[in-house]
């Protein structure tokens, strides 16, 4: 009985040891090289942001669309501007995609794909910052 | 009158599963069509920025209208106390539910953002007849389910009359609501008419009954259950009366429209020079959908033959689809009078130059979606009658008719 269990556990360990890589990366909140990487915290403590970022964005989207309030820390465009990374050529990498060279998933895509939560924002919103005119 | 017994639909398994398999294939094809439309976007359909509702809406509105009509047979039994119809109530309630669900599903799957259905269920604009209709539809399903319960559960029978009356009133409001979706559109001459709501009600009577007749005859015939001529004769006469009533309403609708000069162009479009819409109006709706079925149903020999009744019912349904096409799409194809006293010479957006009709050419996926809806309604109905006791064991004349000699 005990032997059977031990064997089963060993087999499982073998099977899964190959896929541990992704797990080790999940505790980084930001993408290296993005503006956010140089800052201590997001617009609210990281632990709060990880749970409630969508509530902030959702509230903001309502007052932006209906009341025209644009002066805010909580806009989606703000998320993109701060968390977007660039590739070696200095080109912005879409926050809902992966780095074509390293395969590293970008800020939004990383967690959303990992946790299987659909990311709808960027079917309408731009996923890279737009440079302002001069 | 003898006591009515109900029994599950018992056709042989291979035949039953074969039927379901055929319907499943149709549903699968429709499913792929929907995925295609959702994945690519609506550009793969014939719908565009001028004609924004197309064939899916024709099917959906037809099914929704027919759903409330299908409930009338039950209402005849409970509200109007006609005993002969009482035994038909269960199937009537079932069809009402399956037809409505399928119609709604078509509408939902045609949305630009079907995944946001939850938004439609949680965010309402109570000035919109559409939002009211969501309540009307959900309420209809709940009430008819309760109605069926009172029919099928002995303990609940004391509520049968009350719930039946509520269901009947609700269905009248529901069809009025469906008709009002168009009736409230003041911008388009084809829709802006109070007549549409009552006309939709009378249309629902006929289309619901035609579908009911076909399903009843098919299920009974397939299993060899007795279906008396006397009962069938009553139902087909009723269908004839309903179709005649539509004819009357159509006549009055166009006559009143013709009286007002402002409607002349629209009337000319539908009755004379609207191309496909004119053809569908005269040939599809008036001739095949009303005149021929009336001739068959009121004919002493044809009207009493089963083949005649089946043909008439099928024609009424086809005519109904043609009617919806003329109303829904024809109403949009007729150019909007943005500049009532001017003729449009050029437009950056096809405003109906020189009064030309706006363009719509239906695509295959749209038809597949609509047909899928019909298949779903039939499929769910067939599964339900096999699992539960919806169908009377016999509808022979001596069973149902209190006055049978």
């Amino acid at each position, binding site marked *: 009985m005990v032997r059977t269990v031990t064997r089963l556990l060993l087999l499982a360990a073998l099977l899964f040891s190959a896929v541990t890589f992704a797990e080790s990366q999940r505790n980084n909140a930001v993408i290296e090289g993005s503006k956010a990487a140089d800052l201590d915290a997001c617009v609210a403590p990281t632990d709060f942001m990880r749970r409630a970022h969508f509530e902030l964005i959702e509230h903001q989207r309502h007052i932006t669309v209906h009341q025209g*309030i644009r002066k805010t820390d909580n806009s989606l465009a703000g998320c993109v501007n701060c968390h977007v990374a660039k590739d070696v050529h200095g080109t912005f990498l879409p926050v809902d995609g992966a780095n074509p060279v390293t395969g590293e998933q970008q800020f939004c895509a990383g967690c959303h794909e990992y946790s299987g939560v659909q990311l709808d924002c960027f079917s309408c919103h731009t996923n890279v910052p*737009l440079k302002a005119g001069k | 009158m003898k006591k009515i017994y109900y029994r599950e639909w018992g056709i042989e398994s291979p035949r039953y599963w074969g039927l379901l398999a055929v319907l499943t294939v149709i549903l699968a094809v429709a499913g792929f069509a929907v995925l295609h439309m959702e994945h690519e976007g609506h550009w793969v359909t014939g719908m565009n920025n001028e004609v924004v509702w197309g064939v899916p809406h024709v099917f959906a509105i037809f099914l929704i209208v027919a759903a409330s009509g299908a409930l009338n047979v039950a209402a005849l039994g409970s509200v109007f106390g006609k005993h002969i119809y009482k035994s038909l109530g269960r199937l009537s309630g079932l069809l009402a539910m399956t037809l409505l669900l399928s119609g709604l599903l078509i509408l939902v799957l045609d949305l630009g953002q079907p995944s946001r259905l939850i938004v439609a269920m949680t965010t309402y604009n109570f000035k*919109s007849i559409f939002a009211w209709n969501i309540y009307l539809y959900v309420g209809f399903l709940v009430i008819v389910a309760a109605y069926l319960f009172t029919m099928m559960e002995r303990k609940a029978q004391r509520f049968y009359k009350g719930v039946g009356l509520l269901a009947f009133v609700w269905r009248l409001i529901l069809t009025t609501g469906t008709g009002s979706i168009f009736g409230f559109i003041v911008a388009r001459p084809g829709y802006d008419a109070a007549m549409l709501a009552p006309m939709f009600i009378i249309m629902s009577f006929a289309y619901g009954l035609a579908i009911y007749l076909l399903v009843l005859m098919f299920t009974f015939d397939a299993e060899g259950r007795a279906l008396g001529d006397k009962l069938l004769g009553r139902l087909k006469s009723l269908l004839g009366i309903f179709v005649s009533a539509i004819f009357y309403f159509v006549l009055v609708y166009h006559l009143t429209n013709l009286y007002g000069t402002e409607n002349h162009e629209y009337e000319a479009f539908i009755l004379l020079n609207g191309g496909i819409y004119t053809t569908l109006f005269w040939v599809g709706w008036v001739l095949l959908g009303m005149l021929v079925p009336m001739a068959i149903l009121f004919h002493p020999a044809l009207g009493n033959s089963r083949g005649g009744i089946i043909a008439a019912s099928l024609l009424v349904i086809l005519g109904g689809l043609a009617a919806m096409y003329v109303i829904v799409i024809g109403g949009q194809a007729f150019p909007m009078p*943005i500049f009532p006293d001017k003729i449009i010479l050029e437009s950056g957006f096809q405003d109906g130059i020189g009064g030309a009709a706006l363009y719509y050419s239906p695509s295959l996926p749209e038809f597949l979606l609509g047909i899928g809806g019909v298949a779903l309604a039939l499929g769910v109905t067939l599964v339900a009658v096999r699992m539960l006791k919806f169908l009377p064991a016999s509808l022979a004349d001596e069973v149902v008719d209190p006055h049978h000699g």
Partner: protein
Amino acid sequence: MSEKIDQNRREFVSVAGKAAAASVVAPGVLLHSIAHAEPRAEPVTDAVRYGLLIDTTKCADGCSDCVSACDKENGLDLLGKPDGATDEDWARQKPRWIRTVKVKDRLSGHVSSLPLMCQHCEHPPCVDVCPTGASFRRADGIVMVDRHTCIGCRYCMMACPYKARSFIHENIKVKLSAVPRGKGCVESCTLCVHRRDYGVAGTACADACEHGAILFGDLNDPNSDITKALQERNHTQLRADLKLNTGVRYRGI
């Protein structure tokens, strides 16, 4: 100057930000000139009501500058025909916020050209019929679509007497920050709402009109050019019979 900005923007869009050195000024907005005002911090109020006055007597036949300016401002020019669609289909299915129409009077035969867009009604039928309330009228009179709650039913398009609304029939690849856009939602002229909120003057169409046929302004302000012009001479609403009290008025038709 405006040409230069425009070129900048085009370049950016085509290469998705290769020229990355410039800093981002206001998150996600396209600034046409350095704004004097801050982004809006307080809710809009009904103290203002934005509107347009279109003088069709000044509108030149064959000119479509307002249309191209609108297309650029709102990213409509970034859309392409889907692979497999015909040109005719695309012409009917692509979104259009403003269009030029040439009409001839049935009695006099007088021909006039005019731009036609969302009329920003005080009592908009599109808002009345929208089941989810996605179609709404902002306090400052701008009629818009909240695309987060738009389910794509197109009932507003059925109800609009001006055919001013468009449905997005295809997948959108490139989007502007200021004008999000996605498949399956309805949209229409917003009176350049992003300009309103970032304190940038004018609308793209009014700015682009060399003939001075389009006047943009605050209808509630007795001293604004548009109010004065409206007081000065006669003007009409399209489909005045519907009593929608439109925010866009026409002169000369």
